[in-house]
């Protein structure tokens, strides 16, 4: 079985910034990978390349078996994306936003309507479905954005800091939604600042820092290798400036 996501040696330069310096990662079909790293580490840039939004300067990547550079259309047909910043249309209602996404995913009007209702319910937005999205609170907008990424039942899901701004109840709800999708066979790459979230959702974790993978493995492996009892401590040990951990000789799984 081919991997859901496979990236090799991704490089991205912005004017004056080396955002990625050769990132490798792999998400087997049906698995959940958490991408961890401090602010500016390169998480969103990696997601951007994998979702065809950012052109890499080097390296290659395949999503759902398609090359992100040569077959962007195919990739887009196979992915659902919720970016770090909610990008819903504030001048449409929540309901209209989801229908728009459904229609652009080439669903029939009726199917898009049914799917919208289902997702609004799932994300606790039914009560505000007919309000303009620009009147939503930050967390509501976030949930609408997440719902929009799930409209198409895409086999590969990208969630860039999906729970930022969600209250604990809604965060648990989102986790449950992700669980359901994973149970149905969806592969997920998510980024997060909450190690608890990585612990809860992910099979494997990749830690990036300054555009490089500094560690990868299961949550337990990371704790074990850093000799820190919690993922928080392990993470800090890995990414603190001048980290004392022997440079994570541990790219080996």
């Amino acid at each position: 079985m081919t991997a859901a996501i496979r990236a090799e040696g991704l490089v991205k330069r912005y004017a004056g910034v080396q955002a990625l310096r050769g990132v490798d990662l792999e998400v087997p079909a049906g698995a959940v990978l958490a991408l961890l790293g401090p602010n500016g580490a390169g998480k969103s840039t990696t997601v951007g390349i994998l979702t065809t939004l950012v052109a890499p300067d080097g390296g290659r990547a395949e999503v759902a078996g398609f090359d992100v550079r040569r077959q962007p259309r195919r990739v887009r047909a196979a992915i659902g994306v919720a970016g770090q910043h909610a990008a819903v249309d504030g001048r449409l209602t929540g309901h209209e936003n989801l229908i728009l996404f459904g229609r652009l995913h080439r669903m029939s009007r009726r199917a898009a309507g049914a799917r919208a209702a289902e997702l609004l319910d799932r994300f606790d937005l039914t009560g505000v479905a007919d309000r303009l999205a620009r009147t939503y609170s930050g967390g509501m907008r976030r949930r609408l954005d997440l719902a929009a990424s799930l409209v198409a039942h895409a086999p590969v899901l990208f969630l860039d800091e999906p729970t930022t701004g969600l209250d604990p109840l809604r965060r648990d709800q989102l986790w449950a939604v992700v669980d359901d999708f994973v149970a149905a066979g969806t592969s997920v790459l998510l980024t997060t600042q909450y190690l608890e979230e990585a612990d809860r959702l992910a099979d494997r974790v990749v830690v990036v820092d300054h555009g490089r993978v500094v560690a990868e493995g299961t949550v337990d492996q990371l704790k074990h290798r850093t000799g820190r009892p919690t993922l928080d401590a392990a993470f800090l040990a890995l990414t603190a400036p001048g980290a004392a951990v022997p440079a994570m000789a541990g790219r080996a799984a």
Partner: protein
Amino acid sequence: MTTTDALGAVRWSLTDTLVLAGRSLRHWRRQPELLLLSTAQPVVLVLLFTQVFGGAVATPGMRYVDWLVPGVLVQVVAWDSAKTAVGVAEDLASSTIERFRTLPMSAPAVLAGRTLADAGRNLFVVLAMLAAGVLAGLRLPGGPLAAAGAVALAVAFGYALTWVFAYLGLRARGGEAALAAGILVVFPLMFASSALVPVETMPGWLRPVAAHQPLTAVIDAVRALMQGRPAAGATAIALAWTAGILVVAVPAAVRRFYRVAA
């Protein structure tokens, strides 16, 4: 790509375009006051200009109201088209376009949908102005068919301009900058034209420019059609401008779109 694939792709592009045009229409439905205001403004212009300039401007062989209404009509079409730049720039700034780009949709449909919806708004505004013109005394001796042709010509020209402004909107940083750039392009075209006064009354250096710019071509054609004068030559020039602008602006905007979105 097989023929069926190609046909399917065209069909989907059309569907995406219509879905996105529907999005713009919904925006207006949510803010009917915007559409109302952008219609009321030109109507007020028509009524004001006919009253204020009516006695002062001598127009060759034509009542001033018959001269003016086609002019203001095309001016307003150009002005209204500039709003496309704002819409495109705002979508870009709010990362809506980025979001669309993760979907398996036809990318240029983002532009095609908006320009189509803007042409719809343009038509609405033109019809309102025509009604105001008739109220102010405009006569249409050319008959309803020629008048319909004049409206179609004005809206088609406006549609071509929306692609120019789509391009500008993609170049600008944010809606405000896009509007400023739009005004800069549109104002000289609007006023250095035969819209308000005959070109012959302008200073010598301006006359050739005003006489040969696209707005004057379209205004002259619309005027001739409405007044039932021989219009074939003027219409041909106006259509040539419309086609020429489309041929340049559509590929430029689409190419720019792929660039900013990459």
